[in-house]
């Protein structure tokens, strides 16, 4: 029980918003910055700071495309990111099953 909790809290995914970002990336190849903002109801600054954390962990990769003159940033989950998400979910489920 205790080790399960520790496992949850040491990963960078023990955060609602970051977990939300990863959830969206698990079911989409590339997701545009604005789409996260809208779906999760965040400000630019707030979303950017969470993205920096995920980038630092190499959970996500970004690409910039120019649509007309506007740069558009999209994100995709790396294999490390997918594994981390799956581990986190498994830990959550185990915690629920242990029924405390």
């Amino acid at each position, binding site marked *: 029980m205790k080790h399960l*909790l520790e496992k949850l809290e040491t990963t960078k995914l023990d955060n*609602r918003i970051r977990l939300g970002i990863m*959830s969206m990336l*698990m079911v989409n190849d590339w997701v545009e910055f604005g*789409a996260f903002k809208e779906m*999760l109801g965040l400000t630019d600054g707030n979303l950017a700071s969470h993205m920096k954390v995920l980038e630092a962990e190499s959970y996500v990769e970004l690409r910039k495309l120019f649509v007309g003159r506007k740069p558009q940033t999209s994100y995709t989950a790396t294999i490390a990111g997918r594994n981390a998400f799956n581990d986190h*979910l498994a830990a959550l*489920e185990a915690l*629920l099953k242990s029924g405390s």
Partner: protein
Amino acid sequence: MKNQNEHLETLTEIRSLMERSSRFISLSGLSGVAAGVCALAGAAMVYLYLGLPLFSNQRLYYVEVLEQGRWGIHYATFFLLDAAAVFVLALASGIFFTTRKARQKGQKIWDPMAQRMLVNLAIPLLAGGIFCIALYKTGNFGLVAPATLIFYGLALVNGGKYTFDDIRYLGLAEILLGIVGLFKPGYGLELWALGFGVLHILYGIIMFNKYERA
């Protein structure tokens, strides 16, 4: 320390985010019912035009009408006008009910999910439309109705990946009806009315009860 409820909530939220960010879920069941009604009305017009008794093998009637036309309208013009009217009315009511549902639930209607679904619907539909023109040009009139059912079914199966899974079953049923039609020439109109009319209405009612009844 977090409790059980919070973890459960997190899991629910993850599932909802995955669903909402990858699927178009504003599609209203009522638009299916409306499309079905339009199709039945369209099929009824064709019956009137051909002056047919129900469920008779129609090859002979077709031949007669194809040669002479009726009401002073050539059959090709009539079929085309009829099909266009059904298509426009069904599309308009679909857009109406779906927009209404999206507004009620505070969802956007024109988002990347909607675009992706429509593109995937459109590819088999366009290919099928061109195929039907070719059938018509080569004189295979009897195969046009089954071909529209088959390609429409393929479009639903394809587009179904980006909306409710249920729509795939509707697609499979349309394909099945179309295949029956390929080998039962002369019953194209009945199968068409069944596929585009009755199945749409059934599907619409099922979807409405499953996802929209508050």
